[in-house]
């Protein structure tokens, strides 16, 4: 029973790894920093695991405490990651300059974040 579910998960892992290499190899060097930042945000998905562990029924106190911190860290990773990446990507502009004059992109509200 668990053997087959493990093998299924393993299959998914292998496919995902190949998929990952394919998709990432198409990212130009220009965007490597947002790529680092974006994948950083994506691994914030661990928040799902943290919530499940911290919030599982009949969890004892220790589990809840450790899980609590896991949720804090996971949320910081996910939220912070997408916000930072959005800030970076906002800056990539084509030549007919935007109305924006010189000066950083700080404080320009990120849209569509969590």
């Amino acid at each position: 029973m668990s053997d087959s579910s493990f093998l299924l998960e393993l299959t998914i892992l292998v496919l995902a790894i190949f998929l990952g290499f394919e998709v990432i190899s198409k990212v130009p060097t220009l965007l490597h920093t947002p790529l680092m930042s974006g994948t950083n945000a994506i691994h914030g998905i661990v928040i799902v695991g943290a919530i499940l562990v911290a919030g599982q029924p009949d969890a004892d106190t220790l589990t809840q405490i450790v899980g609590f911190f896991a949720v804090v860290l996971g949320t910081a990773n996910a939220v912070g990651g997408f916000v930072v990446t959005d800030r970076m990507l906002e800056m990539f502009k084509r030549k007919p300059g935007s109305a924006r004059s010189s000066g950083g992109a700080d404080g320009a509200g990120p849209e569509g974040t969590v």
Partner: protein
Amino acid sequence: MNENLTDFLYLVTIVTFILALRFLSNPRRARLGNQIGAAGMALAIVVTLAQDLESYKWLALAMVIGAVIGVVGARRVKMTAMPQMVALFNGVGGGAVALIALAEFHNLAPAAARLELNLSVAMIVSAIIGSISFTGSLIAFAKLQELIGGRPIVYPGQKVVNALVIAAALALAAAILVGPESQWLLVAIVTASLAFGVLFVLPIGGADMPVVISLLNACTGLAASAAGFALHENVLIVSGALVGASGTLLTLLMGRAMNRSITNVLFGAFGQIQTGSGAALEDGRAARATTADDVAIMLSYARRVIIVPGYGLAVAQAQHDVRALADLLEQKGVDVRYAIHPVAGRMPGHMNVLLAEANVPYERLFEMDEINPEMSQTDVAVVVGANDVVNPAARNDSTSPIYGMPIIDVDKAAQVVVVKRSLAPGFAGIDNPLFYNETTSMLFADAKVAFEQLLASVKNL
């Protein structure tokens, strides 16, 4: 929530992540892709909360705290501190994984029957890699933030100590698998792994941080995937794999760009000051100093100028001044381009982000391989805060530690201007024969000051 619906919605999240990465192939769609991924993350969180859980109040509190930390940290960081921020968020993710492993093991272990092997292995793997990633990232953050020295911290017997620490962790892991499923063993494993994370990153020089950060990013992804195996969550398995693939690919690209093997970067303590580095420079050669006015003339009457930025540009925060000068020169009919070396800066693509922040249109940025053939037709190459990536010793001097690393061939330009505060060696501690070339002049000034002066001088012409 119905289990099928849950699994289906997690699948939607997976698709959004894949799209987020796919859209990163083009600057125009990249930002949208990131927003799609963020929506997918939000969906996954909502779906998870809709499971049959307890203590929602605590969960909500934890999420609010985490969100505040994330948003405040992400919005207030200066763009130039981007590498540090990525390192920090990465570490935080790794820490989360390690905590998940500990909590879940604590939950499952005091069981009547032994845990299934795939579960215990998955928890151990995620605990080890998550912990290494956590402390490793914190050290990387400290090095980039210059809280600790950028020079590699080396001591005798270091490699042996590192090997022993990781061997201890693995031995304890084996103990759990064949022996008592004791939580204390897992705690010991986590402790050893935390220590290893510190010891492993300490000896790596500041200039090699791009490789380290990519690698740690891959590690956190891997740890997340392992956690997915422990919790039977496909969304974690797939997402972790995508991140792991990305980090691995970037790490390999960095290594190739430096023409060094990854093991050499990670274990070679490269960035130490080289006392006998390469051929000794001839005595009596002096680097020729120049002034802003002279350089202004050189630039204004050039047909083609190529600017080579390096980490020093980020440190001096001079990217806006550089762009202002480039704009002025372009008005005068000069063709201004930027040559970006793959490992310039402290993160992959660091220079691109720096210049993008200054509103430099990205069509003006050229990769090393594209722009090197143009160097011989370039009138002036301006090197700002870059050192090793333009060091001809990498091409000519087989005894040099950087021999073989592909560089930007600025010495092939008709004239070279190097903007540098002094003749002190860069992070790699190697002397740069470029400075003593016939066609090279040194503009000894802080990059920001230098470009402000250049701007003023060019305006007066």
